[in-house]
Structures are given as C-alpha cells and as structure tokens.
C-alpha cells in the first residue's frame, strides 16, 4: 500500500522540482530559526546564536543533496540536466554540430531509403498465399539452357503426369486485345490463363467469382467466353461500379462476360499490368494451342507438402524426357527446370539492388567515421574542462554519461533529419522509374514505412549512439589529470589521438576509392552498352506497332493489301526517305522458330533461330549492311518460291567457310502456318546481312532468318520509317496517315528508335546504376575531403608550437608547407594502398552488372587514384598554407 504515497511524491519531485526545492529550503530554515531561538534563550547574543547555529547545522548544500538523493529520481533529473547541458554545448559550436548532423543524416538517409527498396523487393514475400511453395516451371532449350515457355500440349502432360505439384496452372504470353468500346478502339493487355490459375496463387476475386474449375481439355471448348478484370481495369473501363458483373466486353471482336474483379493489391509481375484475364481460347484457329512447337506459356505450380524443389525438378525433367522420346520433333533436347517463383520474378533486380545497398552502406560507414573523428577532436579540446570537473568531484561515470548524452543528441537530430530525407529520396527514386517498367516490378510500389524499415533505422541509430558515445569517452584523461590540467599541451599527449584519428581518415579514403571504382566501372559499362554495334542506323527512325482487327483482315490477301497500302502511303509522305514493316523491331524481340537444313540432316531439325517477317524495303530502311546476295523485292510474293535472308551469326554457326546463298532450309513447327512445315517446303537463302541487334542490348546475338511479309502475312506488325528531318515530329503524321488508311487500326508504341534504345530495360538499369553509384561516390568524396581537411587542420593546430620552434630555428615557409603536405600525402597513399585491392574485390563482386568491362580495369583505377590525390591535395592545402603563415613569435608566446 505504500506505493500510494510513494508515486505522487516521486512524480512531484520530478515535475514540480522548484516547488519541492522551496519546501526543503523552508523546512531547513525553520529548523535553523528554532535553533537560533534556543541559543538566544540559553544566553548567547543574537549574532553568536546565529553563528553557533549555522556552524552546528553544517553544510546546508550537502544536506539538501542527501535529501534529494533519497527522493530516488536522481537519475532522471541528472539525465535531463545533462541533456540541457549537452544542448547548450552543441549550440555553442554550431559549425561542428551542423556538419556532424548533416553528415550523419546523409548517411542514414541513403542507407534507409535503399533498404526500403531492398526490403520490399527481396525480403518481403510475394503477395500470394504461402509464396515459398510457389514455383515457376520452364522448358530449357538446347541452346545453352535458355529458359523457354511450355507449349499447351506439353503443359497438359505436365499437369496429368506430375507427382510433385499440388496444383498447377499456365498463363499465355501477353496479348494485345482490341477493345471495342462501341465508338472507339483501344489496345489493352490481356492474358489467357488456365481455369485454376488464381487458385494456384491463392487469390480470390474481390467481386464475383473465379473461373469455374474445369479439367484442362475443357478449357478450350466452346464455352461462353468469360473474363476477370484487374482492379485498375475495373476503375478505368467501368468506373468502379459494382454492377460490372455480367456486363460484356468486346475483345478482338468477340464478346466476353465479366465474372469477377481482382483485389486492388493483386499483381503478377511476369505479365506486367494485365487488365483482362480470360480463359484460354482458340482465337482464330491458333495452332499454338494444338501444336507442341509454340512454346510460349508460363507455368506456375504449388509444391505438394513435403516435396522439395529438387524432387519437383527431377520430376518435371522426367516428364520432359518422356515427351522428347514420344514427340522428338519439337521436344527433342528440351529439358525442364523448376525455380522458385520469387527467383523467376526478381532475378534481374537482385544484383542491382544488392550493389546499391552495399554502396549506401559504405557511404554510411564514411559518415560514421567522419562524425567519430569530429567528436574525437571535440573531446580533445575539452580535455581541460573534464579534468577540472573530475578534480572537483565528478565521478567517472558521470563524465562518460555526459559524452553519451551529447552523442545521443546528435544522433537524434540527424536521425530525424535523415529519416525525413529518406522518405523524400524514396519518393523521388520511384518517380524516376518509367511507368511501364514499374508495372513489371509491382513490389516496389508498395514499399513505404513498415516494421522492417523501422527496425533497420533503429539499428542504425543504436550503432551510431554506441559509436559516438564510446569514441570520445575513450580519450578522457582519467589517469593523467595533471596532464589535462597543465597549461602547455606540448604535443606529447596529442600523438596518441593523432594516431587514432589518422587511421580513421585512411579508412575513409579507402572506402571512397572503392565507391569511386564502382561508379567508374558502371559508368564505363554504360558507355560500352550505348556504343555497341547495333548493325543498323538508329537515328531518324520513327517506329510504331499496329494491330488490325482480325475480323476484317483474316485472309492473307486482305493482310497483304493492307500492308502494301500502309507502306506506300507512308512512303509518299513528305520527309520520308524509306519505310518498311517487320514483325519485331530491333531491340524489341526476335520471334523464334526451329529449322532444319536441307542436305544437312546431321544438324537435325530443331535448330532454334529467330524469325522476323519483313517488308521488302525494311532492311534497307534500317540501313542494315548487306554482306552477300540481295534484299527482298516485289517478286518474292505469295505465289513465288519461299526465300529468306539470314544474318551473319547464322552463317558463322551453320555455314562456316561456305557460301550460304542458294542453300536451303525448312521449318519445323512453323509458328504461323503449319502448312509450311517440313522438308517438302524448303526456303532458299538469298541474302546475308550483318547482325542487327534484335533482343536486349546486353544480350547475346542469335542467328535470325528474315522472310518476306507477302509469304507470311498477318494483321499485326510494326512499322519503321526513316525520316529526313526529326523523327519525333513525324510520328503524329504517321499515326494520322495510318488511321486514314483504316480507322479500325489500333496503333501503339509510337517512339523513335533512339528513344526505344534509351528506354530499353538494359539501358535503363545500367544508366540508373551508374548514376546512383556516381551520386554515392561524389558524396563520399565530398565527405572524405571534409574529413581529411579536419584531420590536417587539427594536426596543424596541435603542432603550432612545434612549427613556431622550427621556423625560429630557421625553417623556411616552404619547408613547413612541404611538411604538412607530406603528412597528408602519406595518409592518402595508405588510403590508396588499402583501397586498390578493395576496389578490385568490389569490381569482381559487381561482375554481373558490368557489360564488357574488366573488374580490374587499370585505366579506371589509375584515374580514380589521380582524382583522390587531387582531392587530398585540395583538402590539405588550406591548412598547410595556414601552417606556413604561422608567425614564430606568436606561436611561441601563446601556447
């Protein structure tokens, strides 16, 4: 029951301190007065009485202290006192405070913001139920294990025969659907999936129902076409109204009934921002769903309980081997691989993010070191103050605690600033990612403040606190009070610190070098990437893709007529030098097929090559280099013998030392027309061009065959136009011309070729990494210069006396300057020596990010060393000059 009395007392002594103090004084005064009265009553004079009473009372201050001690709030009141004192001290040296707080805030902002990305991409699990059991299954091609999709019949086999998966589903390649909205047409993204797709992921629709579960073969039968909308699609096309269920949507001329809407948070990264999810349907006699040659389906599966990844992989491979035996034509040499879905989705981003995180971590390290040295300098300057306080009776613990509270204050201020800056930085970084790339990395969008990030920030805070509390406290002159109190700090006591302080700055320089090396390597890698030989001339090239309504252009003749009309109308435009069409643009993809060679049966029939369908003028519009033979012309039309142009890589791989012109090959599992399969329909090679970069900028060059459009027409293709003036300005005119030809055509992806190259994924990632790394390196360099400046300046100020003596003994100003510069030079040299192996190691770790650059590029290392040396000279020049300007008389007189 005692606590009822105790707590109010304790709180009162904390919050109403003045009042309580006053009470205590009054109480003691009352006692004193009574004592005086008693003394007077005993016969002393008033003055005597007073003196006697006071003497007997003793030290009022000590009594008061002991009373205060008994209140038990001592620690809190002392802590508050220390905080107040610390604040006043910091305010008295604003330069130090501002630099320390800003430096630390910078480091923390960088680390926390990058960690936010790392957390949302790498640490947080995917937004499906039990995501660690979700796997992605790929077929692997004989060409170096490249991952490919499944064909539909192969998927059916996998579904029927597997023993490892509790549930399995497949999804189509992303299709562009034409959405007819009554009056206008729009191009939208849609994916066909098997009926169990959302169930495998563990996602239930927000509105309506999932696709009803049907057996796989029934997916394709003539059941009513149903579609499930994504949340953004629901908002955009139906205004987010709940009566959307049962409404119909016209896609590619067919009516689909809306049966459900997905939750807002749903995302499926491999397909990007898909708006319409339909069940698989045989659209317009698509041979892709019946033949095994068309391998574009992605497969996701959930492991059964107790089955491991390894077991599932072996199982899938066994099924694949069986297929290879039974259907040797398309499936020979094709294996299977099972990877966790998270790896399939995040594989590309992981190394970049980790590298950035390492860079931010190094920057934070430099910030820590900088602030630690600043604190060390400060503690040196206050040695006398603390020696006096120690002599007056302050306990060692109390003095240490004083440093701790100052450190805490700095850390608190910089954390607040740093976390605020981190939020801003994060938002800025997200804005810099182009929207369509962001749609393939939806996990990034969700990242903000959460437990992980808060815990990480707290960890950084604690490390900083511990570091900054300890470093100055290590220097307190506990043992040698006399030296601290002595007037002349003649340098002997300072050397120990100088040794520690200089070592720290060397670490800073080495870390900066590593960051600079990273930035340099990434920069050079970016340069190489943007200057690779593309095989064509990208400037002044305008491009866009078109999709004609399949209903109107389902026959070959119609498609050919459309294409001819488009090309001629474009070519007749003023300012157009040449125009052409292709099924895939450069840096945009390469299609794919498999061929066998007539009269070379040993090579088999499954040689995977790229396959692009072009108009006659296309290759010359691109200004691709023709090495042998001829381009296509009007004679290569529908009735004529099949011809093709191949690229140099195909020649190098299959026709080494032989003239390929006139040789023949045939298709196996032709993509668009099964009638063209087999050795009965050989294609003759009529030309060879130098390699044109078809897929990713940093990807390998593959063998490609180009065939004339007239022999393989279709309703969708891309258009490339070479303009004499600005390509960007020509784009609207092109679109208008196309719509004049047929208003039902949907155009998309209008961009100039240089834009496409700049915005391609490879270019984007390399550019982003290089810029971010460069930013970190620049910041690190700035911090290191400040740090080095601080060290040298402090060293000079400690050695002022020594310099005075030297000059008095005859040393010239120049020699003093040289002496200081030499000290800086040694520090820099040691920093370099430590930094070079560090840079090489960093380069090796970054290998996967670099394009065509060695990890130990001597030129870059040399350039960085030069930069660092120049920076160091700059940093140390000012203090050195100040040293040289020391007046010996002044230096010797004042110590």
């Amino acid at each position, binding site marked *: *029951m*005692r*606590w*009822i*009395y*105790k707590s109010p*007392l*304790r709180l009162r002594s904390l919050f109403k301190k003045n009042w309580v103090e006053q*009470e205590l004084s*009054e*109480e*003691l005064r*009352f*006692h004193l*007065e*009574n*004592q005086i009265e008693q003394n007077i009553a005993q016969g002393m004079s008033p003055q005597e009485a007073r003196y006697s009473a006071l003497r*007997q*009372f*003793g*030290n009022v201050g*000590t*009594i008061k202290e*002991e*009373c205060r*001690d*008994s*209140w*038990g709030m001592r620690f809190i009141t002392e802590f508050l006192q220390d905080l107040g004192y610390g604040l006043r001290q910091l305010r008295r040296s604003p330069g130090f405070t501002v630099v320390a707080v800003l430096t630390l805030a910078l480091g923390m902002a960088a680390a926390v913001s990058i960690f936010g990305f790392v957390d949302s991409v790498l640490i947080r699990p995917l937004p499906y139920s039990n995501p660690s059991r979700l796997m992605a299954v790929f077929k692997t091609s004989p060409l170096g294990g490249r991952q490919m999709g499944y064909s539909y019949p192969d998927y059916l086999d996998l579904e029927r025969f597997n023993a490892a998966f509790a549930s399995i589903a497949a999804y189509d390649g992303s299709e562009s659907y034409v959405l007819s909205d009554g009056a206008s047409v729009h191009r939208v993204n849609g994916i066909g999936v098997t009926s169990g797709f959302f169930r495998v992921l563990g996602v239930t629709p927000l509105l309506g129902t999932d696709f009803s579960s049907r057996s796989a073969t029934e997916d394709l039968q003539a059941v009513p076409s149903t579609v499930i909308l994504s949340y953004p699609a629901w908002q955009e096309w139906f205004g987010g109204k709940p009566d959307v269920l049962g409404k119909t949507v016209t896609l590619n001329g067919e009516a689909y009934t809306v049966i459900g809407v997905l939750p807002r948070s749903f995302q499926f990264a491999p397909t990007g921002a898909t708006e319409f999810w339909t069940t698989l349907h045989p659209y317009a006699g698509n041979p892709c769903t019946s033949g095994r040659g068309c391998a574009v389906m992605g497969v996701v599966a959930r492991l059964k309980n107790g089955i491991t990844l390894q077991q599932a992989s072996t199982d899938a491979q066994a099924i694949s081997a069986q297929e290879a035996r039974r259907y040797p034509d398309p499936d020979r040499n094709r294996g299977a691989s099972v990877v966790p879905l998270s790896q399939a989705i995040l594989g590309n981003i992981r190394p970049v993010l980790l590298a950035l995180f390492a860079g931010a971590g190094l920057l934070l390290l430099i910030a820590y070191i900088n602030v630690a040295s600043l604190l060390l300098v400060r503690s040196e300057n206050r040695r006398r103050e603390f020696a006096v306080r120690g002599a007056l009776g302050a306990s060692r613990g109390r003095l240490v605690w004083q440093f701790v509270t100052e450190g805490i204050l700095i850390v608190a201020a910089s954390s607040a600033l740093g976390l605020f800056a981190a939020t801003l930085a994060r938002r800025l970084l997200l804005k810099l990612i182009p929207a369509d790339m962001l749609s393939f990395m939806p996990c990034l969008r969700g990242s903000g403040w959460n437990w992980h990030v808060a815990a990480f920030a707290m960890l950084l805070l604690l490390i900083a606190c511990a570091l900054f509390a300890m470093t100055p406290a290590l220097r307190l002159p506990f043992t040698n009070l006399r030296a601290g109190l002595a007037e002349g700090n003649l340098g002997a006591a300072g050397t120990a610190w100088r040794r520690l302080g200089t070592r720290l700055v060397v670490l800073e320089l080495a870390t900066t070098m590593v960051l600079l090396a990273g930035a340099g390597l990434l920069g050079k890698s970016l340069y190489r990437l943007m200057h690779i030989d593309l095989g064509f001339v990208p400037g002044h090239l305008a491009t866009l893709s078109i999709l004609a309504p399949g209903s109107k252009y389902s026959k070959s003749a119609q498609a050919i007529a459309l294409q001819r009309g488009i090309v001629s109308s474009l070519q007749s435009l003023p300012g157009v030098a040449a125009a052409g069409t292709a099924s895939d643009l450069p840096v945009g993809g390469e299609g794919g097929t498999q061929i066998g060679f007539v009269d070379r049966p040993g090579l088999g029939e499954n040689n995977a090559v790229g396959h692009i369908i072009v108009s006659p003028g296309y290759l010359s519009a691109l200004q691709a280099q023709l090495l042998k033979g001829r381009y296509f012309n009007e004679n290569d039309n529908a009735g004529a013998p099949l011809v093709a142009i191949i690229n140099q890589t195909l020649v190098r791989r299959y026709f080494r030392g032989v003239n390929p012109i006139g040789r023949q090959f045939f298709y196996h599992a032709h993509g668009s027309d099964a009638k063209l399969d087999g050795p009965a329909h050989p294609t003759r090679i009529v030309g060879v061009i130098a390699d044109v970069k078809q897929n990713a900028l940093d990807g390998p060059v593959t063998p490609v065959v180009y065939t004339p459009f007239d022999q393989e027409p279709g309703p969708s293709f891309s258009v490339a136009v070479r303009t004499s003036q600005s390509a960007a300005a020509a784009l609207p005119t092109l679109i208008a011309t196309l719509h004049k030809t047929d208003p039902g055509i949907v155009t998309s992806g209008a961009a100039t070729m240089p834009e496409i190259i700049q915005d391609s994924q490879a270019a984007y990632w390399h550019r982003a990494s290089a810029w971010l790394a460069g930013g970190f390196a620049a910041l690190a360099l700035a911090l290191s210069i400040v740090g080095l400046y601080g060290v040298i300046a402090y060293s000079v100020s400690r050695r002022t006396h020594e310099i005075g003596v030297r000059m008095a003994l005859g040393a010239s100003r120049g020699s003093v300057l040289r002496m200081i510069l030499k000290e800086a030079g040694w520090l820099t040299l040691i920093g370099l020596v430590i930094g070079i192996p560090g840079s090489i190691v960093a380069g090796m770790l970054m290998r996967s990010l670099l394009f065509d650059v060695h990890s130990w590029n001597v030129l870059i290392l040399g350039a960085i060393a030069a930069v660092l040396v120049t920076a160091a000279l700059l940093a140390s020049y000012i203090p050195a000059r100040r040293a040289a300007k020391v007046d010996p008389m002044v230096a010797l007189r004042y110590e």
Partner: protein
Amino acid sequence: MSKPTDLVQGTLDLLILKTLALEPRHGWGIAQRIRQVSGDVLQVNQGALYPALHRLEQNGWIRAKWGGSENNRHAKYYSLTPAGRKYLEREEANWRRLSAAIGLVLENS
C-alpha cells in the same frame, strides 16, 4: 553535555518513528523530543535527521503536511502512516530482542 553518540541509520529511523507514534511533529520537534527523552545523550544531527525524514517519507512510512507551528510559523509536520506503525512494531520487537541478546553476551563472557 556529553558528545552525541553515533547512531546507526536503522536505529535513527526507529527513534524517529517512535517519536511520531504519539503525535505528529516537525523536524525540530522530533530532534528536541529525542534529546529530552534520552536525557541529552542522543543529539540528532540535522545532517542525519532530514535525509532520514525524507527517506522515510519516500518509503511511505511517514506522511508530511504543512501547518502552523506553536509560534505561528509555517512548518512541515510528519505523522505516522498505518504501514509505518506496523513497521515500527516490527522493528521495536527486533531491537528488544537484539539488545537483550547483547546484554546477555556482555554479562556472561
């Protein structure tokens, strides 16, 4: 006057609590009372008294209230709480037992 003997802290607490058992007093009053009752042998020093009083208050055995003194001055009066009363009883019993034991040892050895 003989020199005041040093009192152990616990003993001082006991004396204070006993003094307050009869009626509330202020600090000066407590010191005077102890001196009177002990026949000038025990003279409590202010340096020991007030810290002890504040400690006893923090522990909840005595309670303080400001009031008017005999000569109409503002003084802080302390009184015993029920918990303090119980504590006093316990400590008194301990002391008697202890002093009896010491007495026995001094007599018989």
